[in-house]
């Protein structure tokens, strides 16, 4: 088991920077890893609502940083037990993330494929509910919205 790797990073993410943080990568061989799974959340340049499609020109993420790191570590360690992970990477971008760039990366490694896919879904659902990070969208007319899903 690798130590969970959890971070907030003040720029758009690149998965290349994290590949060696999981066992199963060629740089970190392991005898019992059968599946490695990387999920990348990408910011979209268009937001649809009932009335119109607004073009998003700028995306900004803010965190309650110390609490976000605590929640991400709690999530990571819960996921390790629940899905028998042998490695986990959980990274979120903070600040400006232009549309089309990566705002979140979830990497997991373990024995079998299906639990790794389930772990990815579970981690993302919990992250989107509990980790205190907020997105602000700026539209082409200059208006801004903090996103607070109901």
């Amino acid at each position, binding site marked *: 088991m690798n130590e969970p790797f959890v971070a907030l990073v003040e720029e758009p993410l690149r998965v290349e920077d994290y590949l060696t943080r999981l066992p199963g990568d060629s740089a970190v061989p392991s005898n019992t890893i059968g599946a490695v799974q990387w999920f990348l*959340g990408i910011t979209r340049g268009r937001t649809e609502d009932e009335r119109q499609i607004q073009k998003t020109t700028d995306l900004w*993420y*803010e*965190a*309650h940083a*110390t*609490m*976000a790191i*605590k929640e991400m570590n709690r999530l990571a360690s819960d996921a390790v037990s629940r899905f028998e992970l042998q490695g986990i990477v959980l990274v*979120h971008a903070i600040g400006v993330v232009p549309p089309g760039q990566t*705002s*979140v990366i979830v990497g997991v490694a373990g024995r079998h494929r299906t639990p790794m896919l389930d772990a990815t879904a579970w981690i*993302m659902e919990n*992250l*989107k*509910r*509990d*980790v*205190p*990070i*907020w*997105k*602000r969208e700026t539209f082409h007319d200059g208006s*801004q919205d*903090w*996103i*607070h*899903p*109901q």
Partner: protein
Amino acid sequence: MHIDIELFAGPRAVAGVDCIRVEFDATSESGSCDAGEVKRLIADQYPELATYAAQSRLAIDEAYVTDDHVIDLGQRVALIPPVSGG
């Protein structure tokens, strides 16, 4: 008595400040109040935050608490509106 509450995202933009203070009478023995009461105090004293207060959770010392959690004076309190990371 008072409690200081950190704001983030939408509530901070609406309030125009990073932190608000709510005042209350020390009616309980501990001289404190619970998280649900703090959210009601926010809505009463900062009407522009009433909608957010109803939708939000409180975090004490960087962990979510339920509405019946009693807040000790001096703890770090934050209003956490619905999150949108990912």
